[in-house]
């Protein structure tokens, strides 16, 4: 038993900070509650700084292999904290308008980030499961936070029920994993001792299918995606953005820990390769085609994020150093572009009270800067140079091609990318080409400073990774070192 509290300082700090924010809520008068937002922003940034200074490596294991701070974990922690920072920043208007319990709102966002940080560091089934619940239960609450808005309550309930169902599937699968190996530690090799007995394959496949289905719900993979569009539409928009990036990144990290750690990669083709490849193909096809039909921008981005999860899985199936570093860069690119796009959706929703794509018409004339930013984010999501999305897609596809057996999957990925350009371009077309009667009373929009920060961070991230990707690629290649191939 090694109580390594020193390697979980960022998590402990952030948890303490959540309590501080919750308590501070009591001391601010109603007009000064904005301070809570600035406090949460500070918390996320400070925790990110602490993550950078926390030692990483094969020796940083605590609590008997339950908490492992490798480069993989700390990379995902940075992603989660940045997503939290941008979500909190973009929530300025929404919180002022329609959120009543502001302290609890920010406190729960931070708590959820704490859960996700524990999740990406968990290398043991019990702690992984508890951390997963800790990251999703605050999200159920946050989804239902706008109690006056019927869709929000409905979304919260749907998310809760499907979340509970997926947890049950996941636990069932985990119980088989434990039953067959007698250990809950997810380290490469716990499975190899099993491979001697021939019949054990059935048990492995069973546990694998259940675990992938359980995590598939959390990641909103097709065919476990039914909840996503409704929840994304009903939740407060900043929470939607947080859901679509942070919870996806954390779920993906958990999937990586379980699949790469337990169903070790040497036996990939035999056990999980084809299963995940099919899920990736379905996610790309259904996500992209369904997004074509949407008229609400939040629903469109929901389907787009389902498709993006498919592209990420393409790198995941490649099961190589290249694949995993491709995923890392992809998540980074997706983080900036998606959070930025959602920040603009929040701004438009605040000014026009609408999420419909038609209402983006004439945006280029009204506020050209916002329209240009939105265009860059959407182009990055579609994967068009010189944005981050292009580099990310390129890396992921290259990894899959080098694998040798995945050419068909890359073909589907490229074809569906072309489809995706249609619906991203539709928004751009509305903003720049469609004429709209502009009322004389409408002045130029002035955005609050927190939301401007969120958009700026997204913009800078998207462009820098797109134009000068080398340092990020180098960073991404260090992420993979704790996995065996």
């Amino acid at each position, binding site marked *: 038993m090694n109580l390594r509290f020193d390697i979980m300082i960022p998590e402990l700090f952030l948890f303490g900070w959540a309590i501080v924010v919750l308590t501070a809520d009591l001391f601010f008068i109603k007009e000064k509650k904005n301070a809570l937002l600035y406090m949460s922003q500070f918390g996320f940034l400070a925790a990110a700084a602490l993550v950078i200074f926390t030692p990483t490596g094969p020796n940083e294991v605590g609590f008997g292999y339950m908490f492992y701070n490798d480069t993989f974990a700390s990379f995902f922690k940075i992603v989660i904290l940045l997503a939290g920072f941008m979500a909190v920043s973009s929530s300025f208007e929404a919180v002022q308008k329609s959120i009543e319990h502001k302290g609890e709102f920010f406190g729960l966002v931070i708590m959820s980030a704490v859960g996700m940080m524990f999740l990406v560091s968990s290398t043991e089934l019990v702690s992984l499961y508890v951390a997963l619940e800790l990251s999703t239960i605050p999200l159920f609450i946050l989804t239902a936070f706008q109690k006056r808005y019927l869709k929000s309550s409905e979304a919260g309930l749907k998310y809760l029920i499907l979340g509970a169902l997926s947890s049950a599937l996941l636990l069932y699968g985990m119980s088989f994993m434990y039953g067959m190996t007698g250990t809950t530690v997810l380290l490469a090799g716990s499975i190899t001792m099993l491979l001697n007995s021939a019949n054990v394959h*059935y048990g492995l496949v069973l546990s694998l299918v259940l675990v992938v289905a359980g995590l598939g719900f959390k990641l909103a993979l097709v065919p476990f995606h039914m909840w996503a569009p409704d929840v994304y539409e009903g939740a407060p928009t900043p929470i939607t953005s947080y859901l679509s990036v942070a919870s996806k990144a954390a779920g993906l990290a958990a999937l990586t820990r379980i699949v790469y750690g337990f169903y070790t990669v040497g036996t990939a083709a035999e056990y999980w390769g084809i299963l995940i490849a099919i899920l990736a193909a379905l996610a790309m096809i259904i996500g992209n085609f369904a997004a074509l039909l949407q008229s609400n921008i939040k629903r469109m981005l929901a389907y787009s994020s389902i498709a993006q999860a498919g592209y990420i899985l393409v790198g995941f199936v490649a099961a190589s150093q290249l694949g995993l570093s491709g995923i890392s860069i992809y998540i980074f690119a997706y983080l900036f572009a998606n959070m930025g796009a959602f920040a603009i959706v929040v701004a438009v929703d605040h000014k026009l009270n609408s999420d419909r794509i038609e209402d983006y018409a004439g945006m280029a004339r009204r506020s050209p800067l916002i329209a240009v930013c939105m265009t860059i984010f959407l182009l990055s999501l579609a994967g068009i140079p010189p944005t981050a999305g292009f580099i990310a897609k390129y890396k992921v596809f290259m990894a899959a091609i080098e694998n040798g057996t995945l050419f068909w999957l890359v073909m589907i990925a490229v074809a569906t990318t072309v489809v995706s350009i249609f619906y991203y371009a539709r928004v751009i077309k509305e903003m720049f080409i469609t004429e709209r009667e502009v009322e004389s009373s409408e002045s130029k929009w002035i955005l609050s400073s927190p939301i401007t920060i969120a958009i700026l961070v997204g913009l800078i991230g998207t462009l820098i990774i797109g134009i000068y990707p080398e340092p990020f690629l180098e960073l991404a290649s260090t992420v993979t070192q704790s996995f065996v191939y």
Partner: protein
Amino acid sequence: MEYVIFFASAFVAIICALLVISQKNPVASVIYLIMAFVAQAILYIQLSALFVAILQIVVYAGAIMVLFLFVIMLLNLRRDDFGPEKHPLQSWLTRIFGIVLVAELMIMISRGVGQSESMDRAGAEFGNVEQVATTLFTKYVFPFELTSILLIVAIIGAVVLGKRRAEEEEG
């Protein structure tokens, strides 16, 4: 004798579980669920997991299900509160897929999991209170402490979602 008890309680558990999902009346469902839990508790005792069995009865069959029952009675649901009937094709497909899933699970479990060598590794003192407490506070202390954060979150959530609006309280 052991087999008789096993098959009797397994049979009761399965029948009650089926009745839970086939009943139209939610109160009856809850009562069958309690019976299924008690039957499961007997299975746990047979596996010498005494502590789990006691928890199953005290926490699940006792506390949680009583709470369930009260909530259902308070809500006083009627048939038409459940929304329109499902399309018959849909409900048949659900049944077919459900049966296929159960068959698959049984094949996989009997051929795969049952064959694993580590299945009968549990020691004699497995599952008593002392053993559970020791593992909980030594080996699994980290997830155990994490659950305390989880409880804080749950309390906050219950308060936030259950609290009335400020205007309602005044008015």
